[in-house]
């Protein structure tokens, strides 16, 4: 027997993780790994009034197969007077704890809690540890109260942390235990897994108190004893009996998180049905609806197979819950679309969760829901962004607030926050920290930030600088606070607060649970994602306009059912996709002429391929070459062929990567699932290295070349957190197709609906309107007697000659919603007071009860042009209140005219200021006419220029983008009166000409034309800032980083 086994066993029962925000200095994972390494028998994670960290600890124990018992508990400060820990021996105790935490949290603002001693009285099942303060009189009062009022087993916990008063404290504890008849045990108030986290713990304390470590004084702990101490050391510090008592308590704890079984809300199944029979019933109904001409036998078979799988996995309630939500949305005419691993099934098609017709696109349900991969089914439902709240309210109303809550999102320290807060806690000047933050380029792959920061003036030799760098690295990824997930709901059968604590979110009347989506996934709870999507609002509005003006009643499924329309794809192949969902960005646009989508599945690929994942994994070019027949398609094996065939042998979707790991490297379903999770966060956690060996070895033993295996691994890493799943892309592709179809056949309705759904998408109103006009849609200005709040369609008096396909004859009348500074109440009042035949005098508008700022905004927008003179004069008139008083109402306004008339450029500037767009001439054409620009090539003329020829272009800067995927390259979009010009600037160019690059609003670029397929770029050389030509011009460029 070695010496170690002579030691008494130990269970640490008091340990906070970094989910006790700004207190704990170790991740839950680190704590359990270290506790297991020290041969602790058990570890209780007892975060302060929280169980937010326990799931991570639980999953780490499972993942690393640790021999350690995890105890769930929480620490509380009661009445802000004494400290206790509650531990959960059983499921009932766990429910008690969650309820108690919920109570204590719900009475306070986000992030705080308040627990009163009376809250403890109802406890029946928890175990209680009490930590005396060392003030005997006060402690004996507390102890007496605990003994006489509470009905749970309790212990007095002694903690020897080698503080100055350790001996008195210990004596006090013993006296209390004696007098009040408490059993004693020992614990260590653990705040970190290793002693060397003390600096970080001090920094966290300083951040919490808003001070620096130098001046935090006695608020910092005096030593680093609050760590997981080796058992040899504990044996010296504590009597054997106390150590044994910890084991005794641990042995009473039988609760494990795996016992949490989620129970589905029962009300989705009506009386007389079982969940299975009801789901079957709904699918039958849907089948008849969806397949009016009879259900093909292949579809019937597929449905049976899918239902069998659903029943086997017991997911019927999940599908029914979502079916119920979309039924509500449908009844309210809220447009929606499901996506995710299970959404693209025939069952979901029949339940009308998705409008993607699976028979048209040959998607296999099994591809998305897989028994062996052991993932819970994932269905996200997007709703119209302006109406999602109605769906959320429906959930609360149907299930009650005690049964439905939103999942949490854990906000962690990111680089910038880490630099700022650690720097402040170390006493660096805020301006210096700002300087570091603004000048460090985290994308720079050549130079790590640690090197860059020394170039910015941080002395790398100074000890404080070294601490700074080390602590910033340590704190990144530390949780900071919980906030609400974008739309993930957890709905339970019984009270949710017996499953997980609920706390307040920042938003009024919103509550979040203490777990995030990973935790929920770990515990196999189901969540329903209720998301908001702007494009759905736009599509619904377009449908509305089409029904109103053309009497055509469309829906997404019906457009999807028309099949792949070559005319619509023809438009997309020309990169004519402004406003089209997902494929309107510049990067997407430049891919369209190369990929030339011809059918629905091409769109699915197009959406997924222009992503950082495939780009960084270098999958785009091989795919294009193979598609063009320039490169042979080879598969190293039939298994690989089965996975990659539909994407020509190149992995493009996240699902393919996972499947590849399974078929080629022999990963089990569970391992593949771990790989999927590791992929999402490998940059943060570096967990991928664990898989590298396994993947490469797995592949080589199965006969793949090491080279091929290495390439696959690189592609997986490249995918990283940006890998796009096919199951989402398939749903997005439908929205892309529907929006493209609308753009082609009903362009006026399409642009009008888009404009009415802003803010959304990629383009500003100005850009959308210019695109509309380039498509021969007439756009009419805002006019006091003709505009509504929204933009509207009006019959054109003289229809343009348009090709027969599109439904022309309508112009867009801009609405008042575009006028900056005009309140919605003002618009309402204006609409209510507008006479049937319109206002005939300015005076009437003034007397319509609008406020002075509203009137001024209206005047500046030139909406009053038909009643009055120029906008300067009108605004001047609108600035007095005299005429609104009844006494003066009949008087003619005094003759107080301004003699100022706006010039064409002033008009343009005013247009931009009050509506952010102009229908008048483009600034570039005004400047050109005034002969203030040198000879240049217009956007529309670029296609006639030769490849590699030298050109000068001039335009308004409307976008700047430096994607992380292209090192150092910036894409600038210039706009002139004929269209957009795509300029590519290399790092050298931008570095040497920072001033024009960073600040110009009107930019002249001399450079060389690059043409490939139908994609035209100008590679910029000399940049000239011409902003001074238009003083006061304020076009907003949209900058992406």
């Amino acid at each position, binding site marked *: 027997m070695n010496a170690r086994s002579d030691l008494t066993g130990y269970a640490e029962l008091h340990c906070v993780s970094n989910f006790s925000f700004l207190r704990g200095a170790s991740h839950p994972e680190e704590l359990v790994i270290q506790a297991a390494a020290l041969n602790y028998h058990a570890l209780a994670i007892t975060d302060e009034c929280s169980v937010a960290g326990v799931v991570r600890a639980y999953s780490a124990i499972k993942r690393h197969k640790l021999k350690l018992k995890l105890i769930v508990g929480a620490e509380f400060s009661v009445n802000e007077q004494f400290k206790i820990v509650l531990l959960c021996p059983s499921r009932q105790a766990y429910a008690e704890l969650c309820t108690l935490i919920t109570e204590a949290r719900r009475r306070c603002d986000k992030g705080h809690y308040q627990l009163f001693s009376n809250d403890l009285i109802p406890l029946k099942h928890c175990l209680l540890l009490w930590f005396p303060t060392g003030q005997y009189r006060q402690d004996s009062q507390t102890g007496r109260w605990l003994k006489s009022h509470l009905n749970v087993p309790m212990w007095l916990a002694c903690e020897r942390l080698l*503080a100055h008063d350790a001996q008195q404290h210990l004596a006090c504890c013993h006296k209390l235990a004696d007098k009040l008849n408490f059993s004693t045990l020992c614990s260590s108030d653990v705040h970190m897994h290793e002693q060397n986290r003390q600096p970080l713990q001090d920094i966290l304390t300083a951040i919490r108190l808003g001070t620096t470590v130098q001046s935090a004084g*006695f608020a910092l702990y*005096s030593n*680093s004893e609050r760590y997981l101490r080796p058992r040899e050391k504990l044996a010296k510090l504590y009597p054997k009996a106390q150590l044994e008592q910890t084991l005794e308590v641990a042995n009473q704890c039988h609760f494990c998180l795996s016992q949490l079984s989620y129970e589905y809300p029962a009300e989705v199944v009506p009386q007389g049905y079982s969940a299975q029979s009801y789901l079957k019933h709904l699918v039958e109904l849907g089948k008849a609806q969806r397949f009016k001409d009879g259900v093909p036998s292949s579809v019937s078979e597929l449905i049976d197979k899918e239902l069998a799988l659903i029943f086997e996995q017991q997911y019927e309630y999940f599908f029914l819950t979502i079916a119920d939500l979309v039924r509500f949305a449908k009844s309210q005419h809220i447009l929606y679309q499901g996506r995710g691993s299970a959404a693209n099934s025939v069952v979901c098609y029949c339940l009308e969760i998705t409008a993607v017709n699976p028979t048209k696109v040959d998607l296999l349900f099994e591809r998305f829901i897989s028994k062996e991969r052991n993932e819970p089914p994932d269905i996200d439902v997007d709703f119209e962004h302006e109406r999602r709240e109605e769906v959320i309210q429906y959930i609360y109303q149907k299930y009650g607030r005690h049964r439905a809550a939103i999942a949490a999102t854990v906000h962690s320290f990111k680089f910038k926050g880490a630099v700022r807060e650690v720097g402040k806690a170390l006493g660096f000047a805020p301006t210096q920290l700002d300087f570091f933050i603004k000048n460090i380029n985290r994308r720079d792959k050549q130079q790590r930030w640690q090197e860059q920061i020394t170039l910015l003036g941080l002395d790398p030799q100074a*000890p*404080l600088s070294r601490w700074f760098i080390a602590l910033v690295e340590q704190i990144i990824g530390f949780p900071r606070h919980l906030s609400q997930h974008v739309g993930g709901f957890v709905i339970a059968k019984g009270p949710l607060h017996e499953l997980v604590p609920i706390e307040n979110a920042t938003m009024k009347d919103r509550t979040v649970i203490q777990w995030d989506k990973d935790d929920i996934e770990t515990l196999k709870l189901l969540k329903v994602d209720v998301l908001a999507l702007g494009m759905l609002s736009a599509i619904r509005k377009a449908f509305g306009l089409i029904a109103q003006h053309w009497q055509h009643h469309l829906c997404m499924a019906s457009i999807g059912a028309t099949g792949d329309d070559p005319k619509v794809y023809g438009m997309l192949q020309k990169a004519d996709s402004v406003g089209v969902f997902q494929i309107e960005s510049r990067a997407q646009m430049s891919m369209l002429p190369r990929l030339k989508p011809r059918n629905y599945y091409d769109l699915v690929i197009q959406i997924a391929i222009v992503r950082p994942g495939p780009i960084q994994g270098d999958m785009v070019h091989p795919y294009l070459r193979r598609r063009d027949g320039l490169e042979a398609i080879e598969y190293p094996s039939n298994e690989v062929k089965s996975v990659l065939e539909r994407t020509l042998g190149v992995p493009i979707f996240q699902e393919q990567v996972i499947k590849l790991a399974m078929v080629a490297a022999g990963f089990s379903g569970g391992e593949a699932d771990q790989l999927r999770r590791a992929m999402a966060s490998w940059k943060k956690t570096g967990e991928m290295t664990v898989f590298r060996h396994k993947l490469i070895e797995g592949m080589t033993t199965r006969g793949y070349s090491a080279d091929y295996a290495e390439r696959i691994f690189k592609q997986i890493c490249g995918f990283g957190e940006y890998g796009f799943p096919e199951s989402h892309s398939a749903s997005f592709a439908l929205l892309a197709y529907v929006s493209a179809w609308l753009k082609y056949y009903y362009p006026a309705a399409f642009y009008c609906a888009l404009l009415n759904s802003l803010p959304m998408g990629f383009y500003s109103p100005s850009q959308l309107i210019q695109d509309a006009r380039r498509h021969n849609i007439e756009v009419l200005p805002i006019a006091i007697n003709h505009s509504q709040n929204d933009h509207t369609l009006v019959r054109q008096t003289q229809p343009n000659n348009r090709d027969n396909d599109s439904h022309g004859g309508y112009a867009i009348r801009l609405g008042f919603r575009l006028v900056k500074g005009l309140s919605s109440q003002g618009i309402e009042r204006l609409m209510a007071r507008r006479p049937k035949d319109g206002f005939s005098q300015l005076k009437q508008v003034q007397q319509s009860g609008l406020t002075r700022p509203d009137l001024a905004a209206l005047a500046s927008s030139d909406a009053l042009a038909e009643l009055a003179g120029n906008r300067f004069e009108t605004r001047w008139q609108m*600035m007095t209140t005299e005429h609104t008083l009844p006494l003066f109402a009949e008087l003619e306004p005094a003759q107080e005219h*301004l003699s*100022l008339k706006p010039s064409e450029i002033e008009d343009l500037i005013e247009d931009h200021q009050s509506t952010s767009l102009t229908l008048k001439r483009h600034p570039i054409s005004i400047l050109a006419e005034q002969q203030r620009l040198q000879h240049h090539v217009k956007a529309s003329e670029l296609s006639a220029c030769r490849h590699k020829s030298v050109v000068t272009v001039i335009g308004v800067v409307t976008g700047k983008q430096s994607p992380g995927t292209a090192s150092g390259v910036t894409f600038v979009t210039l706009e002139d009166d004929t269209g957009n010009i795509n300029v590519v600037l290399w790092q050298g160019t931008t570095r040497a000409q920072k001033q024009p690059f*960073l600040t110009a609003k009107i930019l002249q670029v001399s450079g060389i034309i690059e043409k490939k397929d139908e994609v035209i770029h100008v590679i910029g050389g000399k940049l000239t800032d011409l902003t001074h030509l238009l003083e006061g011009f304020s076009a907003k460029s949209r900058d992406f980083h």
Partner: protein
Amino acid sequence: MLTWLYLHFPSLQLDAIQAQKTAEQNDDSHQTPLIVLDPKQNQVCQLNQSAFEQGIRLNMGMATAASLCADLSLVAYQPHIDETRLKELAQWLYQHIADIVICPPKGLALKVSNMLSLYGSFEHYWQQVVSVLIQQQVTFSAALAHNIDAAQLLAKSGQCPLSHDPNEVSRQLECLLVEQLPLAATHVEQLHRIGIKTLGQLLAIDRRSLGKRFGLEVLSTIEAIKRKQQRPVVFYQPPEHYSQYLELFHEVAQAQVLLFPLKRMVKHMSLFLQKRDQEIAELTLTLHHRDKQLHPDTSIIIGSSGGEYRFDQWMTLIGLKVERLNLAAPVVGLTISSGQMLDKQCHNTELLTSSNSKMSNNQLISRLQAKVGKAHICAMTLQADHRPEFAFDYTSELKPQMPEPQPLPGPRPLILLPEAKPVTQKYQLLHGPERIRSAWWSDNAVYRDYFIARDPHGAICWLYNEPGGSWFLQGYFC
């Protein structure tokens, strides 16, 4: 009549830094881009030529400025530096020019009309002003106008050449942009939106119509610019100091003898202070010797803790210093000059306290400091620091009310050795360990286990050992 010359100093803090750098390096050819940053707005508020050349502009956000120029130095704006510099400039100019008005934070207004008879012409006057400013190495812009507000606007705009033709000045004023006027941003925006861009356009509008729409603030701003007569202003007065020189009738070789003439001088000073209801905390006594080459003047600084004006108090303090003097050479003259003049504080004026025998704490401290030197009188303070040697501190900054000390973290010895000594004998450990591991961020990190112990003589001591195993004695409990 253009009676006011306004000098605008856009970058006083930056100029001060540049001047210092130039003096240190003796070379200003290599100017690096430098900006002064307003930390509140996070915007550039002063910049040098080199930064300007890199494309940096005033009011630019720091992010943009930093990305335009990689080797940018930046300094946080400290308003008090500008303020002090402005006063100094006034003082320098005052040596040549009367009638100066300080217009904080960045300007001086000079009334030209009164000085022209002295200088003969504006050109001469202007040359004098410029020579002072050049010598002071400040960046400035200047303008002449009929009142301070107008001159200030022109000077601040920094675009117009200095003119003393009234018509030209009017024209320059009319060209000013509305955003250059001291108007609220909302008003400027409103004016732009009705097409009014310049002061000229604004002045052309009927006063009443304008007032109806823009209210009093805009009107009064315009009035202030148009006003022919300057509003009453407070002219700059150099600060008063007490200074008195006394030539002795005969050379004095013994310090004691100096006390007699000093009595008269101090009495005079005391009267001076009393009349102004002021007091001083410090005075300089200068002893002048015959041969200045051989024996430069001896200066003695005498301080009182807290302000004092009374003759006998000062006399006592001076007496203490002078008695201990060894004169290097006979004295032929004496100067007393006061330090900063302070408004008199209310001292204890209780009706029935007998004053002669009692000394206030302040007085006691002053006397002790005068006797043994300021550095030797200290107070003990406690710092919130886990490290024992940093938990106690001495300060010679004595204030009448010392703050309450923080409670000690644990049992601490009354006598702490200046430096811990290695342990050389046997001790009996009584209590401990108390582990202190702290201050990893400093050069004086500690990692120690402290014990209370008894030495062979029975003294209760404070010992610690370090991870290496060595033991030290750091203090004694009494």
